C-alpha cells in the first residue's frame, strides 16, 4: 500500500515536471496554428501564419541551412585532418592547440562576435556577407568536430593502422580515405550532427555578426518576436522545430547505437 502511494507520488511529480517543460512548447506550437491566439483555439486552426512566416522569412531559413551546411563542410575539411594531426603528434604542443581550439566554448558568443567585428569589421563586403557569419559559426563549432573525432582516435590504435597501411604501399591520402576516415566514422557522424544543430540554433554570435540582409533563422525569430504578431512568431518557432527535431532525434539514435555495432568492433 505504502509502496503504491510512493510510486503514485513519484509519477505525479514526474508528470508535473514534464508538463512544466513540455506545455510551453506545445502552447507555442499551438499558437502558431491558431487563427487568433487571444480568442483561443475556438477561433480555429490555420496555416496562414506558417505561410506568412514562409513569405517573410524564407530567406533566413535558406540562409541558416546554407550556413549550417557550409559550416559542416569547413569543419569536416579542417577538423578531421586537424584531429588526425593532433592525435599523431600527441605532444604538449598539440594538447595546447586542442585547448585553444576548444576555448570558444568557454567564451560568450557575444565576445567572439565582438572580436571578429573589431578585426574584420572594416572589410565591408566580407562583413556584409553570410560568409562573415560562417566564420563565426566555424570558430564556434570546430571544437565539437575535432573533439568528437579525437575521442574515436583515442579508442582506436589509429597510428598502427596508419603505419600498417603505409607499409602496404598506401600514400598518405589513400590511407586517410581507406583507413582513417572509415574507422573514425562514428566520431565524424556525431561531430557532424553537433555542428549542424549548433549552427542552425546559434543566436548569440549570429545576432552580432548578421546584418538586416544576412539574418539567419534564430535572428529572424528574435526579430519576429519583437515586431510581429505572437502567432507569426509562434509559427516561426514551429518551422524551427520541424527543422531541428529530426536532427536531434538522429543524434539521439546515433549516440545510442554507438556503443552497439561500433563498440563491438573493438
Amino acid at each position, binding site marked *: 500500500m505504502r509502496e503504491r502511494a510512493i510510486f503514485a507520488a513519484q509519477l505525479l511529480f514526474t508528470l508535473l515536471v514534464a508538463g512544466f517543460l513540455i506545455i510551453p512548447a506545445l502552447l507555442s506550437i499551438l499558437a502558431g496554428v491558431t487563427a487568433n491566439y487571444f480568442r483561443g483555439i475556438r477561433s480555429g486552426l490555420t496555416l496562414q501564419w506558417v505561410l506568412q512566416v514562409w513569405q517573410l522569412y524564407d530567406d533566413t531559413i535558406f540562409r541558416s541551412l546554407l550556413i549550417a551546411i557550409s559550416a559542416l563542410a569547413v569543419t569536416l575539411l579542417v577538423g578531421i585532418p586537424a584531429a588526425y594531426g593532433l592525435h599523431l603528434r600527441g605532444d604538449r604542443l598539440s594538447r595546447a592547440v586542442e585547448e585553444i581550439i576548444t576555448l570558444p566554448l568557454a567564451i560568450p558568443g557575444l565576445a567572439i562576435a565582438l572580436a571578429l567585428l573589431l578585426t574584420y569589421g572594416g572589410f565591408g563586403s566580407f562583413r556584409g556577407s553570410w560568409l562573415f557569419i560562417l566564420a563565426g559559426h566555424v570558430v564556434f563549432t570546430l571544437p565539437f568536430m575535432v573533439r568528437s573525432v579525437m575521442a574515436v582516435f583515442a579508442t*582506436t*590504435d589509429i597510428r*598502427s*593502422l596508419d*603505419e*600498417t*597501411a*603505409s*607499409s*602496404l*604501399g*598506401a*600514400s*598518405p591520402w*589513400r590511407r586517410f580515405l*581507406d*583507413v582513417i576516415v*572509415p*574507422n573514425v566514422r562514428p566520431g565524424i557522424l556525431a561531430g557532424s550532427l553537433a555542428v549542424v544543430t549548433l549552427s542552425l540554433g546559434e543566436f548569440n554570435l549570429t545576432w552580432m555578426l548578421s546584418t538586416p540582409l544576412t539574418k539567419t533563422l534564430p535572428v529572424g525569430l528574435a526579430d519576429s518576436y519583437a515586431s510581429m504578431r505572437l502567432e507569426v512568431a509562434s509559427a516561426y518557432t514551429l518551422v524551427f522545430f520541424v527543422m531541428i527535431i529530426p536532427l536531434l532525434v538522429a543524434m539521439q539514435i546515433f549516440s545510442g547505437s554507438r556503443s552497439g555495432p561500433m563498440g*563491438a*568492433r*573493438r
Partner: protein
Amino acid sequence: MTGVALRIETCGKTFADATRALEPVTLTIAPGETVVLLGPSGCGKTTLLRIIAGLETPDRGGRIVFNDKDVTHVPIERRNVGMVFQSYALFPNMNVAENIGYGLKIRSVNASERKKRIAELIALTGIEGLEHRRVDQLSGGQRQRVALARAVAVQPSVLLLDEPLTALDAALREKLRGELDRLLRALGITTIYVTHDQSEAMALGDRIVVMRKGAIAQVGTPRDIYFAPENRFVAEFVGAANIIEAVCEGGALVLPGGALPLANGTLDGPAFAMIRPEAIKLVAAGGARLHGRVDSVSFVGDRQRASVGGAAGKPILVDVPNTMAVSVGDKIGLSVEPGAIRLLPGDPT
C-alpha cells in the same frame, strides 16, 4: 622468391626531446636470413625496426641499404616492406580477405589475380573459411595469421615483425612460433623479428642481435649467444647463468669451496666466470674438486633447481635431474666440464 640483402650503416636515433634511443648501429643481414632483435624494453630494438621500415629517419650519417640501393630517404610506402605489429592493426572496416588483399589493391593488381593470391595466402596461413569474417570476430591466433598473410601478400623485400606473438597466451605462442618458423623458411624473405622473449629468439633466429640501452651487446647465432656470451649482460639476459667472481690461478678457477679446472690454463688474475646451471653436475662429496652445501631445492617438473652455498662467493644455481634425491643441508660436490666455464670481461656490461 629470393630475399633482399639488408645493410644498416651507423644508424642512430635521437628523438626531438634529445632522448638517445639508439646509438649508431651497423649490421649486415644476408638475403633470406631471419635476424632477431632481442632485448629488454627500452633497449632500442623497436626503434631500429622502425628505422628499417622507414617509420623513423636515422640521425645524420645513418644509411639503410636494400640490395645496394640506398633507401634511407625512401618513404615507407615505397620501400616495399611487410610489417606485423604486436596489436596486429587489422583494418576494422575490412573483412579478412580485404585485409589480406589491401596491399595488392594499392598496387592495382586486378581483381581476379588478387582473389587468387588471397586464396593462396589463406591456405598458406591455414585460415580457410574465414575469408568473409569481420576482424573483430577472430581469435588472437587468427588475427596473427591474417596480419602475417597481409604483410607477405605484397611479396615484401623485408618482413618486419614487432613482437608478433607477445599478445597471445603461452600455449598458442609456442604453436604459432613453430608455424611462423616454417613459414619464414618456406618464403625465404629477409626477416627482422623484434622480441623480448629469449626462447622465441632462439627458436626463430638464424642470428640474434642482443641489444641493451640503445646499443648492440652481441650478434651471433643462438648457440653463440647462449654458450659464448661476450659479456655479463648477454650471459644474464639469455638463459639462467651463474656469474661468479673468482681468481684464475694455475689453470684453474679458485673458489672458496675448491677449484675448477679451466680449458684455457694460461689466464691468471681476477675474472668473472659464467656457468649455466645445467652445466653443473651434483656429485658425491668425496673426490670432488668443488664442495658445497644444498641451501634449497625446488622441483619444477622437468628438473630440479638447487641452490648450493659455500662453493663460491655467492650461491650457485644447479640444475639437478628430476629423479635425483637431493635435500636441503646435503654436503655435495660439484663438477663442471672445463669447456662449460666461460670467462667474461671484468666490466659488468
